[in-house]
């Protein structure tokens, strides 16, 4: 009799639970069946009046039911919570609305390029050193085998610093190339030497889309016994491969710089026409990217390195030229006019 009552309760409770879709209804259900004054408790309380045999049977069944309902409640509650969470999220976001950006700056394209170049050479064991931008004539020309009135001085239109009166006639200038760092390094250290020297250089030059009076160069120098032009070729071809990619062709041709002998100009095959000839490369199919050569024996002698025992190579390249080629930038003046609309593209 009583057992039937328990079974009825069981089927009713689980029917009702199945239909519940709302947390409040679920709570009401819990109070109704499992609460302190709930149906199941009342049944358990009324057990005392039953004969022992029935009491045992009903009691066992009622306790079992209590566990089942409690478990069902927890399960239902979790389901409802998940449904709710889902339904709340179903109040859809327009995911095309703009995201909130975290302000992040950028390095200047020249800095990025310098880091890239220096990184490649660092991996080949070259150490980064720097030298002064305001230099003595001696380091910029004299010690590099370019005495006063040497015709090669015309290659470097120089900005002079007004200092002669104060320095007793030693001409001071804004360095027109990074090569003076070669001399400063060789004065201070003995072979083996393997350095690169990035930095600003200055020229007396009218500016236009392809000329700027201030720009950056990277100088390289390696001095030791038995360093050869073949090593220079290997080093620079490897550099070009890292910078411009595996299938870039490189070329060494004879050129003249007073502080190297033999002198070299290195070119890569044109990025636009791949050697066929176009406007970018002046129809030659090649694009010059740097000057180099074996350090001139006079230069070594001047810094007390015996050119009959030691040899070395040096190279120098313009930095802006590479992003100009890589990104097709049509005006070098964009670099140092610092328009954010330009800088933010890199």
């Amino acid at each position, binding site marked *: 009799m009583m057992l039937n009552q328990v079974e009825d309760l069981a089927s009713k409770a689980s029917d009702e639970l199945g239909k519940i879709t709302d947390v409040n209804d679920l709570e009401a259900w819990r109070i109704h069946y499992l609460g302190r004054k709930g149906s199941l408790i009342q049944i358990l309380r009324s057990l005392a009046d039953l004969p022992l045999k029935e009491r045992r049977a009903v009691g066992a069944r009622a306790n079992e039911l209590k566990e089942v309902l409690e478990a069902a409640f927890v399960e239902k509650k979790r389901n409802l919570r998940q449904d709710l969470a889902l339904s709340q999220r179903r109040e859809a976001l327009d995911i095309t609305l*703009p995201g909130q950006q*975290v*302000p992040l*700056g*950028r*390095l*200047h394209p020249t*800095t990025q390029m310098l*880091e890239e170049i220096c990184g490649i050479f660092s991996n*080949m064991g070259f*150490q*980064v050193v720097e030298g*002064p*931008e*305001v230099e003595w004539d001696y380091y910029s020309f004299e010690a590099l085998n370019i005495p006063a009135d040497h*015709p*090669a001085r015309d290659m470097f239109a120089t900005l*002079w*610093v*007004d*200092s002669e009166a*104060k*320095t007793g006639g030693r001409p*001071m200038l*804004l360095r027109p190339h990074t090569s003076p760092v070669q001399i400063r390094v060789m004065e201070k*250290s003995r072979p*083996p*030497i393997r350095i690169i020297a990035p930095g600003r250089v*200055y020229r007396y030059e*009218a500016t236009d889309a392809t000329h700027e*009076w*201030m720009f950056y160069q990277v100088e390289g120098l*390696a001095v*030791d016994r*038995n*360093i*050869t*032009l*073949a*090593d220079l*070729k*290997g*080093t620079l071809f490897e550099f070009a491969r890292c910078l411009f990619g595996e299938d870039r062709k490189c070329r*060494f*041709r*004879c*050129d*003249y710089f*007073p502080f190297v*002998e*033999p002198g070299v100009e290195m070119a890569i095959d044109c990025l636009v026409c791949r050697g066929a000839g176009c406007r970018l490369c002046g129809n030659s199919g090649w694009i010059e990217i740097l000057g180099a050569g074996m350090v*001139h*024996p*006079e230069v070594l002698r001047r810094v007390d390195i015996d*050119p009959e025992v030691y*040899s070395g190579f040096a190279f120098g390249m313009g930095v802006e030229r590479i992003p100009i080629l890589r990104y097709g930038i049509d005006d070098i003046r964009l670099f*140092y006019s*610092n*328009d954010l609309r330009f*800088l933010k593209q890199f």
Partner: protein
Amino acid sequence: MKVSVRWLKEYVDLIVPLEDLCERLTMAGLEVGGVEVIGGEWDDILVGKIVDVNSHPNADRLRLVTVDLGKQSSTVVCGAPNVMVGGKVAFARVGAHLIDGHSGERVQLKPAKIRGVVSEGMICSEKELGISDGHEGIVILSAEAIVGSPLSEYLGDTILDLDITPNRPDCLSVIGIAREIAALTGSKLHIPEVSYRELGRAIDLDAAVEIKEPNLCPRYCASLLDGIKIASSPQWMQQRLSTCGMRPINNIVDVTNYVMLEYGQLLHAFDYDEIRGKKIIVRRAGNGEVMTTLDGIERKLNSDFLVIADKERVVAVAGIMGGGDTEVTNSTTTVLIESANFNQAVIHRGSLGLRLGSEASLRFAKGLSRDLPMIALKRATQLLAEIAGGKVAKGIIDVYPGKKKMEPISLPVADIKRLLGMEMKAGEITKTLELLGFGCMQAKSDSQVKVDVPWWRTDISCAADLVEEVARIIGYDEIPTTMLSSQLPRHEPAPMLSLRRQLRNILVSCGFQEVLTYSLTSLEMLGRLSPQLRLIGPTPMKVSNPMSREQEYLRTSLRAGVLSVLARNRRYQEDVIRLFEIGKIFLPRERDLPQEKEMLCAVISGSERKLSWRGKVEPIDFFIAKGLVESILSRLGAIVGFEDGEDESLCLGRRASVMIGKDKLGVVGELHPKVLEVFELSEAAYLIEIDSEKLLSLMAAVKKYQPILRYPSTSRDVALLVDEQITYQQICDIIQNFSLVNSVTLFDLYAGEQVSAGKKSLAFRIIYQSPTHTLTDNEVDKVQQQILDKLQLDFGAILRS
């Protein structure tokens, strides 16, 4: 240097296709910058001979000209003044490609009826052929031209534009380039034989040369011709000169120019009768001495200039330009030809001094051979005798104080391997150098080659020079490619580089865009950094030859550059702008190079105007700028403090010095409104400036690990009422000094109606934590009470309930 291939062919056999030749020249150091073909489109243009000239029935100025073309003849209408029977001309058939004489455009010749007469072609001017701008008359070809043959056989040419490096003045000549081609292609060279008859009397009887400055003029040669007739030079010579970009003038000047192009030696012709005292004197100019150069300009000279003078006056600026007084004119009958070698430095300085970059000075400035004057002079004398019909005086004046013997150079065979990285035998080296005209003598052992340098190679002075010669003749492509195999040098730490890199990266991740601004600026720009528009700091160093007033002084501050960039970009960008530059400033030092000090300068400026669907963005203020300084420096492990600042560019009361201990590291603050105004900035901007080098010296060398506290912390909030002038820092310092206090955070600051006048309320959250145990309420209460007592005692702080 422009050189005619037709001309080159006279001196060297061209045995490789032109394209290959250009490639080899370029690879060997003579870069071919351009190739221009003359006559490539002359398919329908022939050599014709004028056989008949008749007047045009309907026009006075036009004539009917019959031209014999070999197999046929044509009659055309022609208006040129120099039409004459027997003349060989360039005849264009209908269909030929020409340049329109009036419009300058490329056209194809069509049959035409001119004033009622049909014209079956055209007799061409230089302009119509595209050779020059000459359009005054038709081209008259030399008499040898064969009637009916294509014009391109006579006038067609290819012009190579070569970029000659400063070490190779010998290649500023047709013969020099021919020598290179012979060496590079292994072909034969034919240099013209020079011979002429000297029919006049001994030159010493009529002229003399004295060199007063033997260091500046190592050699001076002169020849003399009398009875010459000034006229136009022959057609072929004029043709050559104009193809090479020189204007034909008269036979005398044309010969000197022709020989200059041919040999690279500058020659000058004087009208002998105008040379007073019949003596050439090479000396320095007197200070203030004046002469009028060929271009009609009066030049004021000084003792820096080397001049050619006669007994009374200056007649030429040596190696730069001749004078008007002794210029060859139509009435000249006797000429003295100068062929000299001048010191390259004095010519270089002189041409800079006169702002005259003539062809002449270009050549001398590069250091020509001292053997060349005699060789070129003989060639010029020969040509003059042939062309201008003069009688050559017996002998040549040759004053040669600078004669020196060229010593042979020893080239160790091993140097090839040592410098080029490739093995070569003595025999191969010798063979290669001999192609270039070097004389080689193998020493007894095979380890050395003794090399005699040919007279024209003034650039070769050591073994390395010879190594380059070998390399460029065999070709750089033949040199192997190897990686450096030598020992790696010791690594020297570069702390400044790594600090710079870190600073940059931190700033970028804080939203700052890096800029790089010019190192040169103006005093005006630097002055803008002070509200009084006066220069702050040391007087900047000046460039003595600035390109403009804006780029005259070496910057002593990065601020002006960065603020200018801010102002420029503000025109395009509305929201917050954050910029920084890490760069050098230049501080003058006595008798030395300036101190180049690395600085960091950042600005941040912006407003709520930013348009965003998410609502307003926090406006930038002083505390954001200060917070950036704190964040950036704490990332680098530096603990900084702030003190009232004095910086003139910044606002009173809104500026602070950034300190590490007692050392000032930089500044942070709001820019002074006056400064903003001169930079045309309309809204507040905040400046951060850090002395990177000082930062490096003050940064804690070693970071130290702090154990993480394991026991739970307890937090208490207190609100304190204090006098307005008590600073946050004063209170905070006291609280932080108590043991068990882990951190103090200010979370509210209030002054106003709720508190009495002259007071402010600060609310702090204090976190207590012990490294050894879990704190009890009792322990915390005790410390908190001590804190409150101390604050009351020191500042009269009252706990707000």
